[in-house]
Every structure is written in C-alpha cells, then in structure tokens.
C-alpha cells in the first residue's frame, strides 16, 4: 500500500500545515487530519506490531473501532499508551511512537514468534503461564527464563512512570434527553426532542457532527450531506435548551439512566489555554437516552487478512472523502453486501482508482453493476479473496471461485495486483451502550447482526444502531424516537438503491491453508484458535472469549465479535443466535485514570482536629492519626524518646495529676419519653434505673452476641441522656441506634443527635484531680458527697458553663470536664493553670494506653469483633432481667466454649518489651514452628509496676494464670518470656478511683 494525498476533497484545512513526529521522524499533515490519515498520506503503511506474533500491522479502521494502529503519545516524559491513531487529531509538535516492537518497527526480532506457532495459540496464557505440568521443562530454570521472555514479548504499549502534570475536571449534568451520536439519526432525534422544549445534551465522539454523512455520496435536500449536517448541528448548538458536546465519548451506561462520558477538551491543542483541563469527565443523569451510536463495519475473515493494506471498505472511503487521502493507488474491494458499492461510488467520485470488486455473491443488483462499471472496476462475482502477498505493505491478493451457499472455495487461484484491499462483511449496530445497560441483544437474520435488546431503562435506539441502514428510514425513525410529538419536516434524500443485507459469509476457509486468518487483530486471535478452543472443550461464548481472549483487548472486539461468534457457531453446528453473545462492559473506549480521578488525588481524607489541637502542637505534642482524628501521642520534650515521654506522663498521673484531651469520644444526645427504654434494649445492662445526675458504664453487643462497643452514658434528665462511645465507633454506634429506631422499633419515641463536635472534653486524672477542680470550678462543689463516683454536676470555669462527670479510665480519681467546643482551649488552659501547683502534666494517647493496660480496661484492640463479654470478663454487665440486642445469641455453644481466647495480662520476665501482635506460644525455641494459643493486643512499659506488661487474648486464659509462656514476634524476631497474670494488673480493688 502506498497511500497519498488526493489533490482535492476532504474536510481538512489544506491552508494549514501541521508538523508532527512518528517514531522520531518528522512528517507533515493538515489541520483536521488524524494521525492515521496524515501517516497514510505520507505513504506510511506500518503502524505497529501485533500483540503475540509481532506481525506487521497497518491501519484497519478510521474511528474508535481501530484494533491495530495504537500508538503511544509522548508529552515530555509523560507517555500515554494505546491511543488510537484513527482518533488522534494531529497538532504541531505531536510526538507519537509505535508500540510492541523491539528494537524498531521495521526490524522486529520478536516476529520470530510466528514460527513458534502452537506456543501462542488459544489459551496460551493458561497453558504457558502455568508452565508445563509434565515433561522435561517442568519447574525448570529454563522454563522461568522463557516466562520472562513471553511476558516481555506479549503486551501492548508500556505505561509511563512520570507523574501526569495535566489537569482534569469532573462535571455532573442533568437533562431530559441525552442523544449519543450526531450522525443523521442523532441530529434529527435531537432536533425533534429540542423542539418540544426538552433540555437536550448531544454527545459526539468525533470533532464534528455528521457521522456517516461526512463520507456519504448521497445528497440531502440537494446538497452535500456533510454541509447539511454542519448547519443542522450549528442550529442545534445555538438553541438555549441544547448542549452540544463534541470530542465526547460516552463510555458507560449505568443504572438509573446514569451515563459517563469523557470530553477531550485540549488533547488536540499544541498549547493549552491557561487553566483549561486536558479532559473533562461527565456524569450525565438523563431522563431519556437516545442511542444514535451508528454501526460498525465488520471484516470478512480470510487467510492473510491482517497485513498492512487490508482495511475496512468504509475506512478506505472515509480516508478519501473526509481527509482527501487515497489509502492506495490501486484499490480493490471485497464484500458480501451492497455497502462496498456505495464506498466504491464515493471512492471513484473522490478520484481513487478501483481495480476490482470481489463479491462472494453469485449475483448483484443492477445498481451495483452500474456503480462498478462507472468506477471502471472489474466485477468478480462468486469470488473470494483467499490470500494476500505482502511484506510491510500489500502487493497483491489471490482470488478464487467461491460458493456462498456451501462456503466452498474452488478453481485456480488468480493473483490481482493491488496495494489496498477494502473489506466489508456487513454492519453491526453499535449496541455497546445498550448491552451495558442490560438485556440480551436480538439477532436479525436480514442484517446478520445483533440488534439492541429491549430497553430495560428509559432508552431508545435509532438510526443504524437500531438496524436502519438507509438514510431515508434512519431520518424518519429518528424523528419519531426523538419525540412522539415531532412535527419535523424531513429533508429529501437522493441515494442509490442499495441493500445493506449481507450474504451470511463470515469466513473464507480454503482447504489448503498457507496463511493465518485473524479474527481479533488486537489480541492476535485466529479462526483456528477458535476451532482449537472448541476442540479443547470451550464451547460457550463466555468460555471461548476468556480462553482465546477474543474481544478482550482495548477495542472490546468492535470488529471481531460477530465473525468470532459465527465461526464458533459454525463448528458447533448451531446458529449464531443459539451460540449467543457476550455482554459488553464499560468502557466503550479506553478511559484514562487521570480523568476518572479528576482533582481527587493525594490525601483525600478529612482531618478531624479537636478544639485544643493548636494548643497541643504549640506545646510539643507529637500527634498521630487515630481514624480521622489527629491526637497527641506524647508531649515530647528535652530530647526524650517516646517511651521516656509516656512513662513520665503516666507516672505523673499516678503520682499527682494529669490532663488529657478526650474531645474525640463519640457523643450522642438521646432524648424522648422512651430514651431509657431504648438504652435498656441496646445496652446489656440496665439504664432505666439510673438516677438523674449519674452516669453508668455500658456495653453493647451485636445481634449475634459479639461485643460491639462500650462507653459511659449519663442521665442528664428524666428523658435525656448523653451517650459516649469509643472514638473509633462514634459513627457506627449512631448508625446502629438509628437502624433500630427506624427499622425495628419505630414505636419508641426517641430522638438522636450526634453531638461529638459540640463538646470539648478534658479528663483530669490523678490523686490531686479534685484539688485541681476545687481551684477553678465555681457554682458547684466537687467533694465526694456532691460529686461521687459516676456523679455529674454542672458548674462554671472562668464563667464558662461546664459539665463534670466523675469517671475513670485510668483507674485514678478522675473527672471528665465538658464545655462548648468553642471554649475548649480556654477551659483546658484554666485547668492547667489550676493544676500548676500540682505539676499537672498533659498526657497523650501513649500514656492513656499505658494507664488502661495497667488497669486491664478494654478498648477496640480487645473488642475486636470476635470477642464476647465473657471473653473480656464483662459477664457482670449482662443483665438477666431483660432482653437486649445480642442476648438471644450470647449463650450459643461456640460462644461459651472454654477454649475461647480470654483476656489476660502478661508480665515480661526478662525485662524486655513485648511487641503488640506477638503470638503466645509455649515453645521457647525461636524460629521453630509452634502452635499459637493467643496474641498480644496491647503492650507498654508500666511505670506503676516497673515492668513491661501487656494485655493478651489467650486460649482458656483464666486457667492459664500463673503459667509462663513466650510472646513471640516472628516478623521482628523478638521472643519474650512472659508470665500470664490477671488482666487487673494494677490496683485490682479500684480503691484509687473511689478515693
């Protein structure tokens, strides 16, 4: 094939030349060219190497169905692979590279893969990557070497590693009618819809409207159809209720008439306007969708059909009429239907020489014969192409007699010199979006193609996507589908009388095969691969697809689907509709990850900060993230280690007094006449008996009896409670309560409000905690009588209203002081000032953890979704007087098994730290496999005990108390001898917090 620019024709702007490079070589084209049309005009035939066999491949199609001509576009260091040259608009400075060749496109070492035929046949992934199961190469180093080679050889373009500097946008759009496609059907349907006043969005994947009209030789209202389309589109775009998106590919159809599209905003521009995104992603919610997506021409499968120069007939036509490019000097056409004659007519009008038309049919209409004779083409009826001769370009084809009834090839081969063969095997409606939306496509005998399924959402198909193949019926169908109320006067169409129904011929299979016949070019699947898959037992289309990878490449089998099914149906001896088809999946065309992400990259999590956060940072806090919250870990100073810091902080709490920010605890305001009843149902223990002004520690279970969350709940009034939850479960507990109120107990008169962010909380703990409060709280006494353990009082600090509850997580005399979030820092600072005489120490989560481990209090590390109240020694909280969530399931055998993991304490015997997550084993030999009978949930150094300690869940833990074991951490290679003790490791009587 030696393509060239025609002296006239096409919608390119010949006054504007564009310079670009392909594989490092400079070329020229015109504004309006695609990379494919410009390279063809420059006489380029070879566009890439094929996936498995590294065969030379040329351009095959002219649009989004292109399987071969995939290139990598470079912009600086950023590489975008697998771009279709047929859609890529050229611009000054475009740098494109061919793919899948080594070391160069012209000389590819891997082409030797062709000689290794059987290695790459159907199922080659499954067979080869598994390695031979038997034989001399099983598990050999030689095999591993081969695998590396295969992995390198097989593959399309390489992904880049440089960061993408481009900007992408996301948009949401709503409309009454979305029209996908703006060919004759889309334009008329959109016009019909728009004239009723509906809000219309039209999405066109190409740079301009017109679709098939752009390459048509027909006349509309006596005019060039491309001009008619341009004016119609401009008129529509001017309407206030119409949004016309060009270069916009609708790629997905989802439930609820939600469609996704990518708009190429500035890909095609050498210099982007400042702030302009490269691409824009659209999520379009449409009342009704009109799919005017057109049809894809499909090839006929024959030996040698993949060499550069063999193209779709319509593509040859489009390059001539749209881009003014003759794909060859001496074109031949091979067809089973009339549409190739329409192409021949357009080609000869454009000035392209046609040597011959090879038609599998024994006879054709007078209109076809007339076209052939006007074009000066030899008409070979009852013939088929049975071979090609080509190196890097086609030089000739072999034709033989062919009986379309029997599928037999006969007679002597005749060679016809040609440098471009346009093939037409009929047309397949582009039903991809309809298929995504669901439903089984329906086979049409007449068109020999699948038509769209019955709509299961509010969509219609129109035009050739609905199976209307001539312009007159396309237009009248589109007007009706656009709006039933449409009163559009349709234009007059002058067109030759041609019939798009093909003869049912999908493959030419001569008895003697000397060349491979390809079905899926992009994945190098041959007709024989399909027959092999059948012989190996892969009969259903779904199995066939996965075993051969037919239709699984980036083009999703736009050209290969029906021929592949036809060959499978043939070997199975059934009809194509009986063989069925697979469902198309999004995306219709590849979508870049950048446009899906839009501006959402980097750290997307919200950051939750407590009201005192700035104070913490200003006072040396090292913070870490606990869920979304940033919390002080330690307040480090004087170059001490984390361990030194938390030991200092925890010791201060036990010796005098400390203060910790507890604002992150989940807080739910529960109000209503049935508030107490709700709490009785969700907590394992009783809350209705709780007096006003008192708090109680509560435990919640899941419905299956597993522990869920714990916390204290305060009775602020007869019908008002303040529930606190663990920081981590604040949202989940809220959702849990809402679920039961909405779905199970709507009769309970209770209202829930999340007030986590409303209150700032400071916990003051230690023997001097009361003295600190006495020094700063006004309006209430805080002595043991007024504020006993679990009591609540209201008062003021520096005139700010506060609420104090006396409760203890540390095991010391302790108070939680709450105030409005906006006053958090002032109250915190006032407490610090009042504590100054006692050397009050702010402490972080590490010290908080240390204090609770010493006391054996549980947190999320122990309430881990697997433990029961019994496992955690919380049985005493299980009321026997009432049912509660989980009560019915808690006594199941498995939950009472004495082999369950139960909570214990561990004390390090050798003064080594115990690592969290260590396994508990009896075997003292490190690195030897041993049965684990438990694990460490939390560990620290205990300043109160002067030892490294831990909490652990250990099999029948209670009876293990007093035994020795090893806490072994194989990842860090740490093995620590421990004694198993009660989880109450410090002050088991609780005398300190009651003091």
């Amino acid at each position, binding site marked *: 094939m030696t393509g060239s620019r025609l002296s006239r024709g096409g919608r390119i702007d010949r006054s504007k030349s564009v310079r670009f490079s392909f594989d490092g070589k400079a070329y020229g084209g015109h504004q309006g060219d695609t990379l494919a049309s410009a390279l063809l005009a420059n006489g380029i035939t070879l566009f890439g190497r094929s996936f498995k066999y590294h065969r030379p491949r040329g351009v095959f199609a002219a649009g989004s169905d292109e399987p071969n001509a995939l290139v990598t576009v470079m912009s600086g260091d950023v590489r975008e692979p697998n771009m279709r040259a047929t859609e890529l608009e050229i611009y000054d400075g475009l740098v494109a590279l061919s793919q899948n060749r080594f070391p160069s496109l012209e000389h590819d070492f891997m082409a030797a893969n062709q000689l290794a035929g059987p290695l790459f046949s159907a199922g080659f992934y499954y067979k080869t990557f598994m390695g031979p199961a038997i034989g001399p190469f099983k598990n050999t180093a030689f095999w591993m070497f081969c695998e590396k080679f295969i992995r390198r050889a097989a593959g399309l373009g390489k992904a880049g590693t440089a960061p993408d500097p481009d900007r992408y946008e996301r948009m949401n759009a709503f409309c009454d009618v979305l029209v996908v496609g703006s060919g004759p059907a889309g334009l008329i349907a959109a016009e019909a819809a728009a004239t009723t006043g509906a809000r219309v969005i039209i999405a066109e994947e190409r740079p301009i409207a017109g679709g098939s009209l752009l390459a048509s030789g027909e006349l509309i209202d006596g005019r060039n159809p491309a001009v008619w389309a341009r004016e119609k589109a401009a008129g529509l775009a001017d309407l206030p209720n119409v949004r016309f998106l060009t270069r916009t590919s609708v790629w997905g159809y989802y439930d609820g008439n*939600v469609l996704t599209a990518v708009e190429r905003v500035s890909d095609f521009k050498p210099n982007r306007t400042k702030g302009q995104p490269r691409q824009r992603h659209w999520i379009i919610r449409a009342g009704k969708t009109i799919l005017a997506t057109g049809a894809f021409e499909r090839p006929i499968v024959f030996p040698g059909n993949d060499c550069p120069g063999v193209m779709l007939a319509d593509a040859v036509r489009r390059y001539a009429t749209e881009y003014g490019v003759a794909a060859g000097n001496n074109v031949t056409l091979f067809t089973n239907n009339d549409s190739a004659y329409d192409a021949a007519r357009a080609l000869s009008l454009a000035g392209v020489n046609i040597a011959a038309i090879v038609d599998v049919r024994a006879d054709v209409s007078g209109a076809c014969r007339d076209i052939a004779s006007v074009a000066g083409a030899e008409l070979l009826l009852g013939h088929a192409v049975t071979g090609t001769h080509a190196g890097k370009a086609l030089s000739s084809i072999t034709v033989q007699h062919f009986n379309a009834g029997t599928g037999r090839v006969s007679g002597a081969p005749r060679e016809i010199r040609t440098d471009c063969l346009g093939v037409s095997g009929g047309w397949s409606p582009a039903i991809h979006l309809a298929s995504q939306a669901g439903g089984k496509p329906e086979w049409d005998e007449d068109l020999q193609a699948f038509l769209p399924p019955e709509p299961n959402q509010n969509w219609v198909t129109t035009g050739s996507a609905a199976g209307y193949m001539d312009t007159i019926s396309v237009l009248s169908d589109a007007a009706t589908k656009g709006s039933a109320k449409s009163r559009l006067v349709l234009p007059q169409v002058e067109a030759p009388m041609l019939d798009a129904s093909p003869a049912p011929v999908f493959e030419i299979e001569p008895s003697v095969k000397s060349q491979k016949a390809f079905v899926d070019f992009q994945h190098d699947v041959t007709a024989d691969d399909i027959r092999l898959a059948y012989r190996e037992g892969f009969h259903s289309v779904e199995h066939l697809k996965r075993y051969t990878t037919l239709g699984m490449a980036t083009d999703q089998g736009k050209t290969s689907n029906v021929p592949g099914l036809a060959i499978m149906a043939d070997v199975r001896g059934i009809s194509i509709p009986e063989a069925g088809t697979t469902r198309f999946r999004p995306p219709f065309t590849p979508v870049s990850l950048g446009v899906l992400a839009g501006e959402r990259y980097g750290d997307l999590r919200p950051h939750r900060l407590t009201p005192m956060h700035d104070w913490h940072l200003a006072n040396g806090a090292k913070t870490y993230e606990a869920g979304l919250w940033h919390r002080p870990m330690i307040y480090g100073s004087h170059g001490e280690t984390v361990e030194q810091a938390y030991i200092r902080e925890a010791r201060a709490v036990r010796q005098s007094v400390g203060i910790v920010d507890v604002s992150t605890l989940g807080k739910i305001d529960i109000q209503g006449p049935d508030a107490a009843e709700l709490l009785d149902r969700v907590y394992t223990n009783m809350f209705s008996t709780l007096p006003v002004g008192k708090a109680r520690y509560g435990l919640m279970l899941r419905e299956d009896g597993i522990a869920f969350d714990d916390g204290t709940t305060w009775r602020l009034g007869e019908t008002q409670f303040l529930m606190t939850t663990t920081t981590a479960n604040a949202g989940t507990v809220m*959702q849990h309560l809402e679920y039961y109120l909405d*779905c199970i107990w709507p009769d309970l008169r209770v209202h829930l409000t999340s007030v986590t962010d409303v209150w700032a909380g400071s916990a003051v703990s230690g023997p001097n905690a009361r003295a600190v409060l006495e020094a700063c709280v006004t309006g209430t006494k805080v002595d043991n009588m007024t504020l006993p353990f679990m009591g609540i009082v209201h008062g003021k600090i520096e005139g700010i209203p506060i609420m104090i509850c006396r409760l203890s997580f540390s095991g010391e005399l302790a108070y939680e002081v709450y105030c409005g979030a906006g006053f958090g820092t002032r109250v915190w600072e006032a407490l610090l000032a009042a504590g100054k005489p006692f050397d009050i120490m702010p402490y972080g989560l590490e010290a908080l953890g240390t204090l609770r481990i010493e006391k054996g209090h549980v947190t999320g590390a122990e309430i881990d979704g697997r433990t029961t109240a019994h496992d955690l020694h919380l049985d005493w909280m299980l009321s026997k007087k009432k049912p509660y969530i989980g009560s019915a399931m808690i006594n199941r055998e498995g939950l009472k098994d004495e082999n369950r993991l139960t909570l214990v304490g561990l004390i390090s015997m050798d003064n080594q730290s115990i690592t969290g997550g260590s396994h508990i084993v009896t075997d003292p030999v490190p690195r030897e496999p041993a049965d684990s009978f438990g694990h460490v949930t939390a560990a620290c150094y205990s300043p109160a005990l002067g030892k490294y300690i831990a909490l652990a869940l250990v099999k029948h833990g209670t009876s293990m108390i007093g035994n020795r074991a090893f806490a072994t951490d194989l990842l860090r290679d740490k093995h620590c001898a421990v004694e198993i003790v009660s989880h109450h490791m410090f002050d088991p009587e609780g005398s300190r917090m009651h003091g």
Partner: protein
Amino acid sequence: MIIKCPYCGPRDVIEFIYQGDATRKRPEPASTDQAAWNAYVYDRTNTGGSHREFWLHGGGCRQHLVVTRDMSSHAISSVALARDVAASINDGGRA
C-alpha cells in the same frame, strides 16, 4: 443508581449506606426460639426479581428507607420510609 428519598428527592447512590435485607423479621426480644434467631441473624435468601432492602440516607436526611429493587434489572419500584413500613408491620399483628 438513583434512589428517590421521600424526604430529599432523587439522590445518587453514593449518598446512601446499604443496611441489609429488609424482608427478615426480628423475633420478639424475649423470644428464646434459637432457630428463629439464627434465621434472623444469618439466613439470607438470594432471590432474583423483586427484593426489599434497607438503605440509610447517610449523606442526606439520615432516614432508613425500604427500597424495593429488582435484583436482575436493578430497577427500583418503590421507596418508603423504614419507620412507616415497620410501623405498619407492627400494626399488622406482629406481637
């Protein structure tokens, strides 16, 4: 998928949290019928066709909804407030 919240109108599915099968019936709180509890907690039928499920409008009004949805086509045939549905079931003789 779009769910038509009775309070908030048609909203995208990302605003909602799936909350499970809405056809199961919780035994009476005091029930000791272990089989009934097991069925409630663990058994889920995998029905093609119409199915009822709970969705929480977490990014909106925070109401639980009962959504009747076709498991094959995903088409939503009705959306009601879970409170109304539960109340009507309770009135309808659920002890």
